[in-house]
């Protein structure tokens, strides 16, 4: 069933959107939140488990101190207060991928609270209030077998992998963000992008959305324009790319608008985002009926992070993203627009690393925001998930600089990188992409072109040098692109002078 949608502009003419984000971040600690099991991604199912993360009778949790440190650092980087005293709580609900049928989480005593992050969109700064950042454990992963969709409905049976159960998570919850108007979806996306950047900078997570190490729920509500009130929200889950954050928010704006405009009520519910079709569908109804019966985890003692420790962690925080952006913009000499595009594409770190690897700022920007951003868009993936690294880009550009490749050939090297054909040099060799610098072969190709296009040759002889382009094209075609266009032009003009 597809929902009716109002056009985005119409929706915004009638309603004010408010959004909030709940971001789950898997920490990259070596061991799990409450036991000593390894956390490596991609291991054989159920090989990274023990009595504690399987919830076997009698097992008990022990808090991972590194995870607590990461949580505090995240809190500090988000300008949060760090609790002087806090506890874990049990969130009780039944689900087969939850080994204990309760999740050990934090409830009314989060480790970090009351912070903010400033997000820039098209030159405007939006302050996103952070309500809390709290620690919890991940659940196992269900694999539904036998259905056509991979979802539980229609499945014949389900398998559960508990390797993920107990992986440390930080959940970062924003306050409702009002006042972003039509920019709300973009601000939401920019927030997640910038949060990712911040987490990468802290080195606390791999933040790979495609592997699920950063997962996003988008809360959205509409209220009549100018009312200043908060409407009933929906919580859209499974939003696992920056692009989808924006799309999902936009979709829900358009969907809510139709319901509200027709005098209907928005059901407070969980919705699922479908990356492929770009729509949300209704999940379980989320209302007061859902009672998690939270109570303090009696198997763990309260935590009271020492103030000296917190202050030491604060003093050791890396440069905040906005300061870093200002510094890099100055260093690279980017215009505001160039910088905005770079950040907006989530390519700041990629560009920076490419520059560090020896490429000029403008060239690094050209590749990432031109060629690679386009390809990411085409394949609907994140630019960082293409499989092309800053080192790759730097090497391709080095090959261009030393005359082995031209831009056109360089693009073919990127084709190879995207297809997973190995390192740039190997791709050049395997695909035979290097520029032919054999003057004899080049001369012969030029001769063929002149012979095949006598009238063009005559024009050039008459001084119409601009016509050389047609001959260059013919030569490049014969050389399958593997020639230096500048040298071809020189040869043509030499021969026809």
């Amino acid at each position: 069933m597809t929902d009716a949608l109002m056009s985005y502009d119409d929706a915004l003419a009638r309603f004010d959107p408010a959004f909030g984000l709940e971001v789950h971040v898997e920490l990259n600690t070596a061991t799990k939140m409450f036991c000593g099991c390894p956390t490596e991604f991609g291991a054989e199912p159920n090989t990274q488990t023990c009595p504690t993360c399987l919830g076997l009778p009698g097992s008990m949790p022990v808090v991972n101190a590194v995870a607590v440190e990461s949580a505090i650092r995240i809190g500090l980087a988000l300008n949060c207060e760090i609790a002087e005293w806090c506890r874990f709580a049990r969130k009780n609900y039944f689900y087969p991928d939850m080994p204990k049928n309760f999740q050990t989480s934090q409830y009314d005593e989060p480790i970090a609270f009351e912070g903010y992050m400033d997000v820039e969109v098209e030159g405007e700064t939006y302050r996103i209030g952070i309500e809390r950042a709290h620690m919890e454990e991940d659940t196992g992963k269900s694999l539904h077998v036998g259905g056509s969709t991979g979802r539980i409905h229609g499945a014949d049976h389900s398998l559960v992998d508990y390797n993920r159960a107990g992986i440390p998570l930080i959940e970062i919850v924003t306050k409702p963000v009002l006042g972003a108007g039509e920019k709300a979806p973009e601000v939401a996306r920019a927030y997640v992008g910038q949060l990712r950047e911040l987490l990468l900078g802290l080195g606390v997570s791999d933040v790979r959305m495609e592997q699920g190490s950063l997962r996003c729920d988008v809360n959205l509500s509409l209220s009549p324009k100018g009312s200043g009130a908060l409407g009933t929200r929906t919580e859209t889950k499974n939003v696992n790319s920056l692009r989808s954050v924006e799309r999902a928010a936009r979709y829900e704006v358009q969907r809510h608008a139709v319901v509200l405009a027709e005098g209907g009520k928005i059901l407070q519910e969980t919705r699922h985002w479908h990356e492929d079709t770009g729509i949300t569908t209704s999940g379980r109804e989320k209302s007061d009926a859902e009672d998690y019966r939270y109570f303090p985890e009696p198997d763990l003692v309260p935590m009271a992070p020492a103030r000296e420790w917190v202050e030491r962690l604060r003093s050791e925080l890396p440069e905040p993203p906005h300061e870093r952006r200002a510094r890099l913009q100055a260093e690279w000499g980017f215009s505001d627009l160039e910088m905005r595009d770079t950040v907006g594409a989530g390519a700041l770190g990629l560009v920076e690393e490419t520059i560090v690897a020896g490429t000029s700022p403008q060239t690094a920007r050209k590749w990432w925001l031109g060629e690679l951003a386009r390809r990411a868009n085409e394949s609907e993936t994140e630019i960082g998930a293409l499989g092309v690294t800053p080192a790759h880009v730097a090497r391709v550009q080095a090959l261009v600089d030393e005359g082995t490749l031209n831009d056109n050939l360089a693009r073919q090297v990127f084709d190879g990188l995207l297809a997973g054909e190995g390192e740039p040099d190997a791709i050049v060799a395997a695909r035979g992409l290097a520029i032919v610098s054999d003057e004899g072969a080049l001369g012969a190709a030029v001769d063929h072109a002149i012979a095949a296009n006598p009238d063009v040759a005559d024009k050039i002889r008459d001084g119409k040098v601009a016509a050389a382009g047609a001959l260059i094209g013919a030569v490049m075609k014969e050389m399958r692109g593997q020639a230096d266009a500048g040298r071809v032009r020189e040869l043509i003009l030499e021969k026809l002078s």
Partner: protein
Amino acid sequence: MSTPDKRTATAIAGALAAGETTSVEVTRAHLDRIAEVDADVHAFLHVDAEGALRDAAASDERRAAGASYGPLDGVPIAVKDVLATRGLPTTCGSRILEGWVPPYDATVVARLRAAGLPILGKTNMDEFAMGSSTEHSAYGPTHNPWDLARIPGGSGGGSAAAVAAYEAPLAIGTDTGGSIRQPGAVTGTVGVKPTYGGVSRYGLVALANSLDQAGPVTRTVRDAALLHEVIGGHDPLDSTSIRQPLPSLVDAAARGADGDLTGVRIGVVTELGGEGYQAGVLARFGESVELMTKAGAEVVEVSCPSFVHALAAYYLILPAEASSNLARFDAMRYGLRVTPDGDPSAEDVMRATREAGFGDEVKRRIILGTYALSSGYYDAYYGQAQKVRTLIARDFEAAFEKADVLVSPTAPTTAFRLGEKVDDPLAMYLNDLATIPANLSGVPGISVPSGLADEDELPAGVQILAPAMADDRVYRVGAALESLLAREWGGALLDRAPELTGASS
């Protein structure tokens, strides 16, 4: 019918050290005793003869090589079925865990193995430790060796009965609201609930995490001290375990054994006596206090007014924690699985399994706890109960300013008849009236036999409580009272228990 080995663990350890016997001999004697009388007593849910004899042989080899692990190396022990034992079934007295064999040892069990104690088997208990009679075991009740028609107390009736019936010289119990001490009182044995956090809970299948504590079940105070020293001490796998060395308990018991209590201030708790307590139980308690006074103790009366709310608070906190702890029994990973007909969902399987696998008392407490934690009720129930807990802790604090230890009858009555209270949960809950306050505030307690009640010639017990981490005090005073009473009686109380005939085997 062979002669049971009635020696204490201390005596067995001495005989082993002197080379007068072997662990295999001792272990086999206890296994024989189990074979002869356990059909009547039903203290055990699982007997591991092969494993116990193998461990006994290994102990003997160590001893021969001069490499014994410690004083109790080779002395066999029984373990309550609520502690995870690698390779040995662990059911917690529940159908829902029938057939489950843990892949790991509880820390207490690991420490027993590391100290060389052969494990005879797993003892019966009320399902998930919910009860005061073992009648709530899914595998049938345990019978009191003093009178097989009566309850052995609970939840750890199996451990107490095994020790009282000479099926084991030592046992491990767990005490959430009195499950070590009350069975000790009604079977004429000694039971200790250590300071909360003094003995690791890792591998103890939780009933109520903030109340549970494993401890020794023995026939003498000194044996309990020896065993306590083996199982106690900090464990990094239990975050609530105390990072502080235990005081020397065996020394404390030795010190008390001379029966001199000069300078010890003993507080009699006003609220733990009187109405609801059987006359014979109170009479034996009064005599014990009198004996201690004669031995030099200064007896004072102390009031702990909040104790009257202890039972109510306990029956909110315990079910709340239990309802969450027991959620994991859902047929997905281990234990019983009941698959309803048709095309059941995972949720259907969970529901059918829990319906079939849990007994009535367990279901009652899950419902109670779920209710107490529900939004809108949390503050009124769980929240209030936690406040009562704080008040009880304050009462203890104030009382321990006036007295070094507090004393009361352990249980209000002697052993009642099987079936007498099984359909009356509230009457059953009252058994723990005197023992619960210690669990709510984490302080240690011991139950020592005080004699036989006049009405029914059945054992009663005295409870001695001390401040947290002052477990040595309960051993000192417990050992003193034990030896004062032994002088009166001219022997141990258990010597007066009827001989078991092994009629059913």
